[in-house]
């Protein structure tokens, strides 16, 4: 909490909630959520301009890698958009917080969970702003393996063709997917050159350096004539040593012992 008693959106607070809720609900997708914590913290603490979730002029955010929604729920809770009781209903019967986010929830612009669809929805939101001459920006946070989907490249081509510089994609480049490492499944490298070849403004950042992420986004020109992609080099399971870069933690839940160890370890990256 800050001096006013408000909860602050820090990476540590988000990681702690991810661990607590994953443990309580006994579910996986922990590594994927930990991977985007620092990106989410920067977006919701420093970047996204959202006066209130229903504001038509708000910045749009699409969590295209919907399976990491717990990181998003943590940010919503810290922003005061979710109560503790609601947060504690994560993955509970009859609750509103599933593993993947639904637009019925305040703050979620689009339901996601089926990979490869978020960028198209984001491109539509960005095109809408362009037609209406609205100043809102659209952010889409994608997984790296999501780039396996052909539909992603349809959207990439469209956004470049229509010069949607109000569209900002962030790729969580942790180099692993459900069943293996990206280089062994469908190699994405050189990912930056691929996006560049499709006409995008490409940046690369350390996806766990909140200052660098913030500076990079703030330095983007919304009149550049090309859409922006920030390839965030991340570590799957960041902050919990036994999860980092391990395929198992895509789906696996934690034991009691693993949970205690994880809680201790994330304090070190506080």
């Amino acid at each position, binding site marked *: 909490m800050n001096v006013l008693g408000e909860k602050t959106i820090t990476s540590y607070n988000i990681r702690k909630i991810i661990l607590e809720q994953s443990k309580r609900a006994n579910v996986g997708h922990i590594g994927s959520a930990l991977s985007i914590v620092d990106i989410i913290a920067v977006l919701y603490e420093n970047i996204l301009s959202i006066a209130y979730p229903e504001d038509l002029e708000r910045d749009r955010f699409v969590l295209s890698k919907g399976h990491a929604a717990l990181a998003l729920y943590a940010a919503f809770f810290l922003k005061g958009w979710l109560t503790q009781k609601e947060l504690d209903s994560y993955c509970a019967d009859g609750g509103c917080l599933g593993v993947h986010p639904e637009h019925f929830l305040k703050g979620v612009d*689009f339901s996601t969970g089926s990979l490869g669809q978020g960028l198209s929805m984001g491109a539509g939101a960005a095109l809408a702003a362009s037609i209406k001459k609205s100043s809102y920006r659209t952010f889409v946070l994608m997984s790296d393996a999501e780039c396996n989907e052909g539909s992603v490249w349809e959207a990439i081509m469209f956004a470049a063709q229509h010069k949607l510089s109000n569209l900002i994609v962030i790729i969580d480049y942790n180099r692993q997917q459900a069943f293996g490492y990206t280089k062994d499944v469908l190699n994405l490298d050189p990912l930056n050159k691929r996006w560049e070849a499709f006409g995008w403004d490409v940046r690369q950042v350390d996806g766990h350096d909140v200052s660098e992420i913030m500076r990079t986004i703030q330095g983007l020109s919304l009149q550049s004539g090309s859409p922006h992609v920030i390839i965030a080099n991340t570590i799957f399971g960041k902050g919990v040593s036994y999860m980092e870069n391990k395929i198992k933690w895509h789906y696996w839940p934690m034991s009691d012992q693993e949970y205690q160890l994880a809680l201790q370890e994330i304090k070190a990256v506080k």
Partner: protein
Amino acid sequence: MRNIFIETLIKLAEKDNRILLLTADLGYTVIEPFAEKFPQRFFNVGVAEQNMVGMSTGLAQAGFIPFLYSINNFVSIRPYEFIRNGPILHQLPVRIIGVGGGFDYGSAGVTHYGLEDIGLMRLQKGIGVVVPADRNQTQAALLKTWDLPGPVYYRLGKGNKNSIDGLNGRFDFGGLQHIRQGNDFVFISIGSITQEVVSAADQLEQKGISASIVVVSSFNPSPTTDLIKILKKFPLAITVEDHYVTGGVGSFVAEVVAENNISCQIKRCAVDTLIPNVTGSREFMNSHYGISAAKLVEIAWHCLRNDKFTLSKADLFLEK
């Protein structure tokens, strides 16, 4: 139907700037008038139907009413999951225009047939399904549905000049149109194939058989109540559609009969099993799958005589 749809859409777009038209690179010689009149509200997204639907979700969420234009199967089957997770799940006013149902693109071959769209869309309760039977009904249907809050799928026949006797441009979303009164049995038809049904009824009349014709032109909401009243009056209902036999109007009628204690025999005339190595014009294909006027007369004749008549693959393809 395509031309009247676009003509009507232009008139609506003149009054409401929320209307956009997107195409996945199809509609040559049809959609240009819209593009010329509203160049800022027209987008050729390229041959990319999934992105077109995904984008339309973002556009509609921001307040627009995007109309998406392509050939029936390319805009229904190809991006189906995008339709489910986008406009349907979010309940947004996206309009999907699938041109060329059934065998409208006959000699183009199997990849261009539209035989699943009604069934696929009908099973998603969150999307309205509109299937006009002729030009005037197309216009009426668009005028009554363009500004609905949720998504709508329009199945448009490729022909532009067809006019169904007795329909007189009537359209009632969630209702049906009784276009011909008869006593012996009822034809229940959907879309532009209704022209064949009317012709079949004319021919049967010359043989002394009097057929009613009911046109179903929308689902979700479906005209269940009206249909129950009609089915209770007849011993036999023959459903006709240029669609696979499962999922469309024949399935709908069978469900209504089964769930409402109605003793009406049903004969579903539709495409059962597609023979992939046979192609031809729309008329040829309709005849070979038993949904041409001549075949419908034959089927009705046998059904009324209570023959154990089935139009099997052999009947269809071995005949001279």
